[in-house]
Each structure stands twice: as C-alpha cells, then as structure tokens.
C-alpha cells in the first residue's frame, strides 16, 4: 500500500532554501519590471512586462506549487488549458487587431 510519503521517493523534493531563493528572485523581477516600465522602449515595454510576468508565474508554478512532484498527466491538463486559452486569445486578437 502506498502512503503519501512514497511520492517523495521518486523525485528529490524542493528545499525551503530553494523556495526562499525563488522568493527573492521574484522580488528582484518585480523591481526590474517596475523600473523598466519607466524607460521608453516603445513596443518592447509591453513584451518585456509580459515576459517577466510569465517567468514569475513559471517560478511560482514550478517551485511553490510543486508541479515537478505532481503527476505528468496533471501538468498536461493544466498546460492544455493554458494552451487553449492562448489559442482563443490569439484568434480573438487576429480579429480585432486586423480591423481598420
């Protein structure tokens, strides 16, 4: 009979030290995002802000939410919903962004 503790035998767990480190990285990224917003970079401002937000979200999902220790299938469930959202959003954008 498997107990809940058995899931740890498959993968090395994420340590609290790593989580603290990720936390400070997230704070640093926050400072960077706000700082860069004041630098005129044209279109690149938006791309930069979204990219940093994606990195921060990925850090939270990977290190705080233990996606690594979760079954691969669940990750695919979640990833596919994000993918479907991207498809729906992109198709919406192709409509509105090409209207004159």
């Amino acid at each position, binding site marked *: 009979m498997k107990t809940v503790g058995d899931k740890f035998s498959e993968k090395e767990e994420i340590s609290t030290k790593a989580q603290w480190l990720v936390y400070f990285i997230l704070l640093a990224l926050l400072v960077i995002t706000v700082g860069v917003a004041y630098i005129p970079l044209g279109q690149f401002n938006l791309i930069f802000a979204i990219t940093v937000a994606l990195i921060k979200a990925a850090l939270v999902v990977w290190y705080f939410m233990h996606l690594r220790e979760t079954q691969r299938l669940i990750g695919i469930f979640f990833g596919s*919903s994000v993918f479907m959202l991207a498809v729906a959003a992109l198709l919406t954008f192709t409509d509105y962004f090409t209207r004159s």
Partner: protein
Amino acid sequence: MNNSVRSENSPTHLQVQYHDALQQHESAVAGMWLFLATEVMFFGGAIAVYIVYWYMYPSIWKEFSAHLDVVLGSINTAVLLTSSLFVALGVHAGERGYMKKVMWYLASSALLGAVFLMIKGYEWYQEYLHGFYPGAWHGGGGELVDRGDLYFRLYFALTGLHALHVIIGIVLLSIIAILARLGRYSKDYYTPIEVSGLYWHFVDIVWIFLFPMLYLVDRTQ
C-alpha cells in the same frame, strides 16, 4: 478485490473509493489543478478583453492607467509574493507533520492577504475620491471611452474579481490553519493543506499578471 486488509490497516482518512492514500492524495491534487485550469480560462478571458481594448485605445489606456498608484500596486505585489512564500513553507511543514508551523505560516499568509485587501480598498477609495470610476461623469459631452469609463469598468471588474478570490483564499487558509492546529492533519494526511496552498498560489499568479497589465501600461514620459 480483497477488502479485509484494507479495512483493518487503512488510515481513518482514507475514503472507500480509493485504493490507497497516495491515490487519494493525487486525485485531490489533480482535482484542484483541474479547477485552477477553469480559473485560467476565467481570468484569461477577462484579461484578453482588457488587452483588446488596450490595443484599440492605446492613448486612453496610457492616460487612465497613469492614475493608478504604482507604489501601492508594487507593495501589494510584494505582499502577495510573500504570502505565497509562506504558504509554500507551510505546505512544506505540513508534509513533515509540523502542524504548529503550518498554522503560523497559513495564518500569516491569510493576514498578508487581508493587508492586500486593505491596500486595494484604499486604492479604490482614492480612485473614487478623484472621480476615476465608471459613471463618474454624468451628463456632459464626449464619448464614454474618452472619459475613462471603459478603462475603469475593466479595472474595477478585474481587480474586483481578483479581490473576491483573495477573500475566498483568506477564508480557506484560515480554516485550514485552525484545523491543522486542532490536529486534523498529519504527515500522512496533509492533502487539504497542499490543495489550499495551490489555490492561493494561483490567486498570486493572477495578480502577477494583473499588476503590469493594469499599472504599467505606459509609464514613459
């Protein structure tokens, strides 16, 4: 299926439909991730609307987004990031059976969530005082969108929906913190702690996207 071994040796928290505790745990975690997938759809759709109108009215977006308080927004982001860290540490403690630590970490996170709401409420109040809300301009000429109506409808809808999720998260974390302290969980059964943690992390992630989208539209002079 031989059930007699199961009923004599299985832990009390194990429900009948599961073969073993690990399967039960993984099912619960899968269920929460599935729910979070629906939340991605929910917030993603609303944010997509915001982005479309941003594209259509860039100067208006720049004008009215500038009225949002970047300092308070940044502080709020840091508040939620810290609460997320505490939740992660609380789950870590729960996995090892340190239920007192779980209580402190989760209670602290709930408290930080309340701080977030207070700051947000203060921001909303300031925006109300300055007339930055939908319907603030009664009568008078001009398109509603030019007067910021469209922008602030979306701003209040997005932050309001997010705040509602924060409230739910605070209640959830508080209940789990109390139950942990009352000895309901152990290192063999800490599933509700982990699952509540996942919900809170998602609330944090939504804000991680909302903050730059709302506050950092175009801050260049």
